[in-house]
């Protein structure tokens, strides 16, 4: 089915997410939709798949104007979307997920559906267990389930929104083979949304580049990555080279140290991190990196081994003691675990103060302090701004501003997730300043490039095991992806 979007417009408040965007996808082809975070890619695709109604523009399917106001109607017209976080039901079984939304009378026809599910997944070489619960699957398997489900509903157009985020290299290879097959052999129209140049170059037959809600250009393949970069950013940006920092004393030492939780066990790890060192934790989500960060912050008690901070054994110490020892932890959910919606910036700075405070708060003084921090960290807001009113980038700046002045160990989860390039650079500049002051940094990221570029050493996680610690200068994306997939050495 040929898909044409003509002059799509959509605003969110004062932000023009889509400002007259047009896009054409031929049947049997893979069209790339490229742009950095916040360029308007997801909004455009949500318009096409019925999640968002546009304020202007038209959608043509095989030349005929199509109107729909819900995702279910879009699927009826043959358009299905796979979301970055698969839109399925994690507590339900694979088979029930497959059945959900296929109206076929009163009773659930499980036997019939199981046969169809198994046939379809075999056709694409997927191995899906109908009786498994979705919350035990990997993101890659959940994508496969969604592909099979949408195909069974007779979808002709498939939209993939950043599908390679959070899947391993072998799974990525399977995914790309599936996408090619869908286009070439099954004649479907595939739209591949990504912010990663190399993936688009590898896979697509044509690329549309979005920048700030507008089409920056359209290119047919083959082309060079320089051309794409110029379209994405307006100019070619040079990548940073990590500066040499002399490493100091050991800050953190783990000795055969393991963590046990209901969901996941982290096998015993031995690791030494020195002052000023940056260690990137690579791996699929849920492989144990987050557990390691939380346990290093003192939030989870280890089940064995010991943890030393600057030579002091921290076994059995509370989270408060870890804070006192100069450890800080920044989780990924900024409004869930970090900031407090409903409180303003000044109140946050009062709460974050580590030194003994007087019983009664001096608000005039507090507002003054907050004002200085806000200026220092370039936060767009005032002491009385509620934190939920800040943009994602400004929330991250606020979180960094809340950190105490002297830190020994900084633990970060996805420090630049959802930020535009400029904010991400700013965040890293700040972190590198910390490192020069002798703070050791451990961070996780789903972006392997970020890990490679920013770390001194990289530790790779898979299924609750820390597989390897690599020197960042001695490895590359291929090797990391291979290890993340669960292969040793």
């Amino acid at each position, binding site marked *: 089915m040929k898909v044409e979007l003509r002059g799509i417009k959509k605003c969110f408040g004062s932000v023009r997410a889509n400002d007259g965007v047009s896009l054409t996808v031929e049947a049997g082809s893979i069209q790339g939709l490229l742009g950095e975070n916040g360029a308007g890619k997801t909004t455009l695709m*949500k318009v096409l798949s019925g*999640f*968002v109604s546009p304020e202007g523009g038209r959608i043509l399917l095989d030349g005929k104007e199509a109107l729909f106001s*819900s*995702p*279910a*109607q879009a*699927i009826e017209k043959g358009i299905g979307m796979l979301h970055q976080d698969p*839109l*399925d*039901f*994690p*507590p*339900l079984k694979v088979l*029930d997920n497959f*059945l*959900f*939304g296929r*109206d*076929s*009378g*009163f*009773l*659930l026809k499980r036997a019939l559906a199981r046969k169809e599910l198994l046939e379809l997944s075999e056709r694409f070489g997927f191995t899906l267990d109908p009786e498994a619960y979705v919350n035990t699957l990997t993101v890659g398997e959940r994508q496969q389930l969604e592909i099979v489900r949408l195909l069974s509903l007779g979808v002709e157009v498939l939209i993939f929104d950043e599908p390679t985020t959070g899947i391993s290299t072998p799974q990525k290879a399977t995914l790309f083979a599936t996408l090619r097959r869908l286009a070439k052999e099954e004649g479907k129209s595939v739209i591949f949304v990504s912010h990663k140049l190399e993936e688009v170059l590898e896979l697509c037959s044509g690329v549309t580049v979005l920048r700030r809600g507008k089409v920056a250009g359209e290119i047919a393949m083959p082309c060079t990555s320089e051309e794409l970069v110029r379209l994405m950013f307006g100019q070619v940006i040079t990548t940073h080279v990590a500066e040499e920092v002399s490493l100091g004393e050991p800050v953190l030492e783990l000795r055969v140290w393991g963590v046990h939780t*209901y969901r996941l066990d982290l096998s015993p790890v031995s690791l030494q991190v020195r002052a000023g060192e940056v260690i990137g934790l690579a791996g699929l989500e849920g492989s144990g990196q987050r557990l390691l960060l939380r346990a290093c912050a003192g939030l989870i008690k280890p089940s064995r081994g010991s943890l030393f901070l600057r030579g002091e054994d921290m076994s059995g110490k509370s989270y408060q003691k870890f804070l006192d020892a100069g450890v800080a932890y920044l989780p990924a959910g900024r409004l869930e675990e970090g900031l407090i919606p409903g409180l303003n910036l000044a109140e946050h700075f009062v709460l974050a103060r580590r030194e003994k405070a007087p019983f009664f708060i001096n608000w005039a003084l507090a507002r003054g302090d907050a004002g200085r921090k806000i200026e220092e960290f370039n936060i767009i807001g005032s002491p009385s701004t509620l934190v939920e009113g800040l943009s994602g980038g400004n929330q991250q700046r606020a979180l960094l501003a809340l950190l105490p002045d002297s830190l020994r160990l900084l633990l970060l989860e996805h420090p630049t997730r959802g930020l535009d390039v400029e904010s991400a650079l700013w965040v890293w500049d700040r972190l590198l300043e910390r490192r020069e002051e002798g703070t050791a940094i451990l961070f996780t990221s789903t972006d392997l490039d970020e890990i490679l570029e920013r770390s001194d050493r990289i530790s790779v996680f898979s299924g609750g095991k820390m597989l390897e610690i690599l020197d960042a200068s001695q490895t590359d994306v291929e090797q990391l992806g291979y290890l993340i997939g669960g292969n040793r050495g």
Partner: protein
Amino acid sequence: MEITLLIRILSSVLANSSPLVIAAMGETISERAGVINLSLDGSIMLSAMSGFAVAYLTGNVVLGFLAAMMVGALMALVIAFASITLHQDQVAVGFVLTLLGAELANFLGEPFVRRPGPRVPYMPIPLLRDIPVVGEIFFRQDILVYASIVLIVVVWFWIFKTQAGLRLRGVGERPEAAFARGVSVNRLRYLYTVVGGALVGIAGAAYSLSVKLGWSEGHTLGNGWIALAIVIFGGWHPFRVAFGAYLFGVLISLGGILQRSIPGVPTQVFQAAPFALMILVLLFVSGGALERLLSLFPPRMRRVVGDALRVAPPSALARPFVTE
């Protein structure tokens, strides 16, 4: 002798637990859809009073049940409107309705206090009632008891075996995904909240017309809270919820026997026992008590036993759904 006593106890547990079972089934389906009807205690009270009043005035038990059903559904409708349409806090609205229901019942029920009224007739089932033991326990009851047992099976079947039940689960687990698959999330939530409320209403009338005949101030006080706790204990699964309700009935009647056999213990202990039991039960399913118990099992069994005992609420419970 011992056996006849046991049969009598089980038979009365079955009868006395039926309102609790019906109310807990109603709450189970509302919560499965993502809406907490916290007003249960007030709803049961008001519907018990209305059911009795209507049956008393008309002399017709069926009309009494209809009235009680409507009262329960109406209370649930207020919760649905306030939480689904107006996005108000379900706990706040539910709590206020609990008080309102109780006060309304006390105010409007005054003329009916301690009046003898009609009751649901005893209805042993021919043939089946003569089966030894089983017949004596199960088939010499009133229709309400039979209905409550059928209800458990129907609710289970509906939730796990039908298309509609799959949609119900989806709406409570991840409304966004249900919407993407063509489900009108909020309409379904209204529907199940109101249906659940109607069942709660029936439970109320089951007290005043069968299990605890008549009406007096605070007639059913506390039972709604126990039903709410049983839904949590039952992990939102109809069979387990029903098990919880019957277990509760057994424990209470054991208490009654103890009371008779050990006269030294003050009666107040047995009056407070249901609520102490309620707290203990919740402590068991939600607290660290379970984890400590699990650590006694060998590691290989921990996961299996843990999965069987641990309960998780519907993921979207009490969370309003808005489309973009």
